[in-house]
């Protein structure tokens, strides 16, 4: 497993402190982050691949300072956003998955084989040449996940990947997450998804208020939200 370290990390937006002096070492395979809206979960998750640079403190991935080695870190860290619509950047399903591989400079046959394998795995093979914008919400999120995994990242960070989905599609995405071998950091309100995780972190107003195995951390969270 990779090691993600937060060392005295704070982040301030114009209207205040959003992440407040967080120190963490994440080495478990599956890590969940929960907390109320606005508690700083997205900001924390975004720091792992350098989409947000902390105003103080450092974040490192396998010893690489994210602020200074953003590109290298982003090759190791795949990111799944809440709204797949804005993560999909190419017109068709196959092209969008292939887009991830552009930076890998593979020969065309190898790249095509990898794209096909991922499309197959996510049940998207029949939709490969469809316009991505005509997929259903659940299929779009599967595509977003497929497009991340084809790059073979060591870590996948997902920020509320199921929040915009109906219950059935949310469960389907969750099942796919369960089959991943990659190290996972998932922000979610879908608590049953996190029950099988190795570690759950509870955030409140930019601070970590509970941290541990899900059976403890999720109870603490339920108590917190009453």
């Amino acid at each position, binding site marked *: 497993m990779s090691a993600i370290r937060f060392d005295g990390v704070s982040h301030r937006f114009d209207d205040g402190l959003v992440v407040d002096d967080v120190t963490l070492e994440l080495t478990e395979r599956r890590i969940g982050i929960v907390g109320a809206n606005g508690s700083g979960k997205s900001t924390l998750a975004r720091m792992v691949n350098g989409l947000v640079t902390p105003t103080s403190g450092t974040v490192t991935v396998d010893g690489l300072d994210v602020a200074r080695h953003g590109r290298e870190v982003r090759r190791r860290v795949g990111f799944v956003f809440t709204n797949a619509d804005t993560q999909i*950047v190419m017109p068709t399903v196959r092209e969008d998955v292939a*887009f991830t591989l552009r930076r890998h400079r593979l020969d065309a046959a190898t790249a095509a084989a990898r794209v096909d394998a991922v499309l197959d795995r996510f049940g998207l093979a029949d939709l490969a040449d469809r316009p991505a914008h005509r997929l259903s919400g659940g299929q779009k999120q599967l595509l977003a996940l497929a497009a991340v995994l084809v790059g073979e990242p060591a870590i996948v960070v997902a920020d509320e990947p199921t929040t915009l989905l109906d219950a059935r599609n949310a469960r389907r995405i969750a099942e796919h997450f369960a089959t991943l071998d990659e190290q996972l950091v998932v922000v979610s309100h879908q608590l049953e998804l996190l029950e099988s995780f190795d570690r759950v972190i509870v955030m409140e107003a930019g601070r970590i208020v509970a941290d541990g195995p899900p059976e403890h951390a999720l109870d603490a969270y339920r108590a917190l939200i009453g």
Partner: protein
Amino acid sequence: MIGVYHPGSSVIHRMPALAKLALLAATVTATALVGSLPALGIVAAATLGLFSLARIPVRVAWRQVSPILWVLAFAVPVQWIFAGWEAAATMGVRLVLAVALAAVYTLTTPVMATLDAMQVLLRPFARWIDPDRVGLALALAIRCVPLLADLVREVLEARKARGAEGSLTALAVPVIVRTLRTADHLGEALMARGVDD
């Protein structure tokens, strides 16, 4: 242009995108220069031949070409009145041919192949412009059309639901705000997906 690729394995599908683009440009230019209706008739027959060679169903072809007929419904009568029937017919046929030939291209060429072709074309200018960037910008532009269309539709529906149908502010403000937010998200996604590499 968006998502209209019609998969197939015909000769036309397999032809390199650059060659197709060159032929498209040459033919459209030729039809613009050729004035005689019989000559245009030959091009029209050849264009039909291309559609059948590429095995494009009539329904699919029609969907590509029919929108231009709306334009012609206005433009042809106007041209007829001011320049006579022959000029009107020539213009109408030229326009339909240009659209139909372009449709043959887009129906048989994946967007990615077009982008790769553009990058090859731009390579001599690589000192001044980054072909990768241009290709990406074009792909994004294509991708953004349905994104914006959805956004406008949602805002229109919301405006209707709230009984503000006539209000321009109730359309423009949310559309602009949401467009900017979408652009932000898209920028983040591009960064996460390694565009700065």
